[in-house]
């Protein structure tokens, strides 16, 4: 029995200058049936990696294999075995939604009848039946995205690569989409999910890697990555727009601020003090509201990839 595990081993890919690395000795594997998340900020090297899997780019060194198949040496096989939803919208302006899904399924090797049956299932499962006969040009961004997902899921092959699949999709249909992602996994497909939406990924993936600047910073299940945040809580304070970050009390273990959203990590033992501090901020008119809760994968993500604001200001 063939082991169809996807493996990236020591994959290195530099940009045109040959000095900056989009992927820097990346090693990971995705087993059949597994939903694997690749998380990282913009420019972390996620898309570069998946483009090498599908044969659109070639690694400088390292190997990409699917079971016994060398995907770098045989890009034709890579395209037959892996289906790819790119980050950009699909080129389906002239296609009716149902046509786009069916033609892609048939291009991917399915017979007309089998593809049509699976297409109908997906249209129903994603709740997009009302746009079935609508031309792509007239679809909203979110529905077009769902049609795009159906195009790659209709006849998926052994690996499905999804690059930011939920972009523009409404919250209700996002759930439906994640159910179908899970279903692909249940049917034995290895799902390779690229995203920077940490909270969604936490609920959907079996394992994940957090990457930044082309390197894997951490890898594991969502709970194992949150392990070092055990015994800690996240105190989220919504500051008044354009206000300065208030002075932090000594019990705050770490913090990040994205626009008006200040997230402070506090020890469980300091929960009451944390609430007191947040209430004080509200009384002084610095904050509008706050919430105390369990730490999430996002906290681990921020801890590993660094302060987003600090990064943004360093690069601007």
């Amino acid at each position, binding site marked *: 029995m063939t082991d169809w595990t996807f493996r990236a081993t020591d994959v290195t890919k530099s940009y045109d200058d040959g000095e900056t690395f989009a992927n820097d000795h990346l090693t990971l594997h995705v087993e059949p049936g597994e939903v694997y998340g690749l998380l990282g900020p913009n420019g972390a090297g996620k898309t570069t990696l998946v483009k090498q899997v599908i044969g659109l780019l070639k690694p400088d060194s390292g190997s990409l294999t699917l079971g016994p198949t060398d995907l770098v040496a045989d890009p034709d096989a890579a395209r037959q075995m892996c289906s790819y939803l790119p980050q950009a919208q699909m080129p389906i302006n002239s296609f009716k939604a149902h046509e786009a899904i069916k033609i892609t399924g048939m*291009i991917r090797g399915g017979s007309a009848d089998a593809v049509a049956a699976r297409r109908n299932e997906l249209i129903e499962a994603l709740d997009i039946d009302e746009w079935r006969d609508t*031309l792509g040009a007239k679809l909203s961004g979110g529905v077009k995205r769902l049609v795009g997902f159906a195009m790659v899921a209709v006849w998926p092959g052994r690996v499905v690569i999804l690059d930011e699949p939920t972009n523009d999709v409404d919250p209700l249909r996002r759930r439906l989409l994640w159910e179908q992602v899970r279903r692909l996994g249940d049917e034995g497909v290895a799902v390779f999910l690229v995203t920077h939406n940490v909270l969604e990924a936490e609920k959907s993936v079996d394992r994940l890697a957090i990457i930044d600047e082309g390197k894997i910073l951490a890898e594991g299940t969502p709970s194992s990555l949150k392990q070092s945040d055990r015994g800690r809580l996240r105190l989220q304070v919504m500051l008044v727009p354009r206000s300065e970050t208030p002075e932090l009390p000594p019990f705050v273990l770490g913090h990040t601020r994205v626009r008006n959203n200040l997230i402070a990590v506090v020890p469980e033992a300091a929960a009451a003090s944390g609430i007191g501090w947040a209430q004080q901020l509200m009384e002084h008119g610095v904050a509008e509201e706050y919430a105390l809760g369990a730490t999430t994968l996002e906290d681990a993500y921020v801890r590993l990839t660094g302060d987003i604001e600090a990064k943004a200001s360093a690069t601007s």
Partner: protein
Amino acid sequence: MTAGTIPALRSGPRYWWRSFLMMTRWEIVGLRLLLPITVFVQLLTGAGFVLGVGLFFGQIPPRAALFVSTGVIVITLATVGLVLGPQLIAGQKAQQTYDFIWSLPVPRSTAAAAWIVTNTIIAVPGMVVALVVANIRYDIDLVISIGILPGALLTLYTATMLGYAIAHSIKQPMLINLITQVTIFALTGFSPVNFPKEQLPGWLAALNEVLPLLHMANVMRAGLTEGIVTGLTRSYAVLGLWAVAATMVTGWVLRRRQ
């Protein structure tokens, strides 16, 4: 195991043929919104050029009318392959839809073959209408022979493959568009397509002997007229070499990964 999991890799002539049919369908449906307007523009360009030359010069001698009329259809075919095709690919690159199309599991050659079929569908109506309009306007002595078929096919194939190679090898969509603009300028102004090559300066005529456009005009004109084309075998040979070269470059470009 899901219904869509591939049991074995597909290959062989049946796989090629099925992929070709599917890609042709993909291209034609993909141009559904653009196809009517594109064919219409081709009609206008061809007929407009024929009539425009007449307006500009008033009276045109019969031989010149024959050159213009047969030259225009070469321009309509070459424009589709060398200008319109690359611009459509530049559009895919600009809209970032290029990656999806090239991730589809089909032999690269089937995508190129489907592209040629699509270009033929776009080009042929304009070519026919230009000829009909020319015939009505100038009452020219067309002698249409079977030679027009290989001539038109080779012309369209070479132009399409050249345009395809340019469009796929250049990353920047803006640059693709710029090059195609220059091409159409050279095509209409500096290549002996609408006029005999003797009217060009010696060095430019010599240059055109090795470039494909003069020979496209010759093979087409030979299938539409009698007694005005000489050196037809040489024209087929030169154009054939261009076709082979363009095919090889396209093959290399499509297999190349960065």
